[in-house]
């Protein structure tokens, strides 16, 4: 099958996802920011040939944003399906990104969908939709934020096949950075080495580590003609910290690489 999306597997995640899809099981993906969760889901959607409905969850996302609501048209009111309902009806992958950000009530609508019932009851219309055989629920979250108030309830987590993602190995990451940005291998290697230096600072000086995504951004900026140190400052120093002292240290670190 032709698949235009590039994804470099780190382990057996493709097989696991595939098997879960064949068994109609929902999948939970956890991992730090920018390590390739969304890209993986896009890739798998293309691989399985199913449409992808992505919902970026935010703290004001309600159940009706997912399920749908009544609207008023020229001929009176009509029901408008939300992205979840559409995927349930027509088949396809519904991907809820950063699901913990959503309000608590939204996860409840996921429960009957994510166990053996595979149904979506819509309270407002009194309808109960049976899920299309190709429907698949995928949610993701970042366990790095130890957050007591927003967390995934164990009862929700229990319903998913879970996979843990992390930043790729340096060699793989070099390949990814080259592939995505088109920089030469040597620059990519230096960027990845710098990224790994920065990752050591997590929890200590930085709240979050430099993601693969940021490394790719930096590589793209370099590829478009920005000097290496400018690109690194703009993409790898400033986004990660506001502390002047930490920034100076990161600047020094960049100079040590380029």
């Amino acid at each position, binding site marked *: 099958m032709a698949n235009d999306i590039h994804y470099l597997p780190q382990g057996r995640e493709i097989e696991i996802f595939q098997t879960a899809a064949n068994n109609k099981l929902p999948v939970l993906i956890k991992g730090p920011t920018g390590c390739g969760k969304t890209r993986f889901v896009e890739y798998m959607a293309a691989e399985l040939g199913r449409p992808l409905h992505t919902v970026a969850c935010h703290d004001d996302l309600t159940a009706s944003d997912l399920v749908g609501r009544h609207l008023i048209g020229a001929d009176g009111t009509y029901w408008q399906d939300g992205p979840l309902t559409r995927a349930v009806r027509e088949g396809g992958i519904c991907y809820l990104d950063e699901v913990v950000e959503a309000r608590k009530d939204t996860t409840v609508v996921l429960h009957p969908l994510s166990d053996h019932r595979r149904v979506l009851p819509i309270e407002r219309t009194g309808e109960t939709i049976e899920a299309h055989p190709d429907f698949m629920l995928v949610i993701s979250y970042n366990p790095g934020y130890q957050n007591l108030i927003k967390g995934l309830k164990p009862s929700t987590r229990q319903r998913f096949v879970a996979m843990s993602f992390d930043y790729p190995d340096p060699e793989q990451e070099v390949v990814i950075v080259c592939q995505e940005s088109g920089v030469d291998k040597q620059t990519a290697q230096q960027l990845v080495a710098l990224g790994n230096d920065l990752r050591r600072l997590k929890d*200590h000086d930085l*709240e979050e580590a430099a993601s693969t995504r940021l490394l790719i951004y930096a590589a793209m900026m370099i590829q478009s003609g920005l000097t290496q140190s400018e690109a690194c400052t703009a993409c790898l120093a400033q986004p990660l910290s506001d502390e002047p002292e930490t920034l100076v240290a990161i600047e020094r670190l960049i100079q040590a*690489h*380029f």
Partner: protein
Amino acid sequence: MEEFVGELWHKLITRQAQTDFAEAKVEFASLQSQLATYFRAMGGEPGKNLEGTGPRAFNPKRRLAQRMAGSHRHFAVCWQDDRGLRLPISLAYFPDSALNEALYFWQTALAAQLPTIRHWFADNQQATHDLLKKRPGLAAGYQQLAEATLKTRPDLETLKGPELERELAIQQAIREPGSVDQLPIAVGDPLPVPIWIYPAPLYALSPDSDDDLDDMGDGSRAEKQLNTGRKQAERIDDAKQTDGLLVFKLECLFTWAEQVDLDRCQEENLDDDSSTADDLDIITLSRKRRAGAARLKFDLDLPSAQNDDLPVGEGIRLPEWDYRKQAYIKDYCLLQPMLADDALPAAVPDYLRNQARVLKNRFSMLRPQRTWQRRQPYGDEIDLDAWLELKTQPLRNEEHQDLYRARNNPQRDLACLLLSDLSMSTDAGLGANGDSDQRVIDVIRDTMLLFAEALSSTGDPFAIYGFSSVKNKQVRYQLLKNFSEAYGDQARGRLLAVKPGFYTRMGAAIRQSTEVLKLQKSQQRLMLILSDGKPNDIDRYEGRYGIEDTRRAVIEAKQQGIQPFCVTIDERGNDYLPYLFGEQCYAVVNDLARLPVLLPKLYLNLTGISA
């Protein structure tokens, strides 16, 4: 007149002898935090501290003027041991201050590359070579430093014989790291090379060591001994500081004897006890043992009534969980709330003022945002969702529809109680060997203070309590700031006056904190527990009993809708905290010095305010 001439002469000679560039001096203190971050990013162990160090004694060949001035016997070099990286308190090797600054960063990077040093000459070359290969951006900077260093090397024409050969080898090694294998042997020390790392000094070698005494206190000559195995072993011993003075050895014996007699504290780690020496590293443990040995004496050690804090009320009776019976022992603990009524009101101490200000600013920005509330009977805007629903579901009751959106009061519904362990173990010094001047309790005190400063600017209700215990009949529950009191100089004075107490009967303290938090009407109730080790007391409250009771207390708190979270500085916390608090509900802080800054950050993460 004589004095005047003497002074002139002194000035003249010292100026003649002078090789430092005072006008280009760079201070370590101004770069410390940057260097620390740099060190960690370069792969240095995150637990290591960066500290300033004074000059070290060397014995290089000196010029006449230098000999007359009595200078050039001490040099500022960079070295490291298990505890930390020591950088010179100031650097003035080079005429350009930018170069001196670059030297600090170079030393830091090289030290991260070279955590243990075996052979001064070979290892430095190898590490430099590796570092430049790994981080090519450093090459240009190294070139500058190397050139500047070569300019400060002794004039080759003044040297002869083995000294000349040695100097040539060093200069070659600086120019092309990794190119020279052996350092020729010569009298005295070579002039120290500032761009290299030095081994830890051997000051504390035991007097009865068979090491050549001439070689003591001078790590730079390690290069002479190509067979370095012996020396290295000695260095490891040195770091443990267990075989120094004879007195210390006797002390070893005492502690060992006590330990065997008492059969205390050791039931959990019988296996570890095979090496008494290792145990001795942990000063807190041995202190506790001694106190436990003299139990009677210990009770007399309790402060007298007038010197003690004011007990509030009669005390509160609390149950305790006995895991062997799988039942509560009713009213077993007597918890005594205490108030330090004699603590004077105090302002933020000077050394914390800066940090407190930064935190306050940061937290005051995080005052809860006004958010929209849906479906209100009145408000600023129409709630379109509610209105649509009304229109599309005409059967519903048309009266009493809440069709507006309103901005709510900016109040986060979150109450936080910070419970600090004030047990005796917090009296221990910081650092791996517990020999620093700063004690754990000082850090805990600063942490509580900064936490209070930060939270007082968010407007979230919070309370701070401390606890320690002497058996079940006296669990001291120190009231530092309660929920209803406004945070001010009074509460700050009490925070600053905290003293380390006795033992850690954690279960009772958690139960009481649960009671306090239950009275708060907030929706989210967070109990942060700041601890330095396992629960223990001098009766049976230790080992499994203490763990089980604490776990039970945590479960009770969770059942009341309270979220307990434990922050520990115990490196072994990972062993038992998951069982006590649950997988996601604890954090181990490795670098104690950063705890005061980390705790407010952790609070933000936990409450999801910044995420």
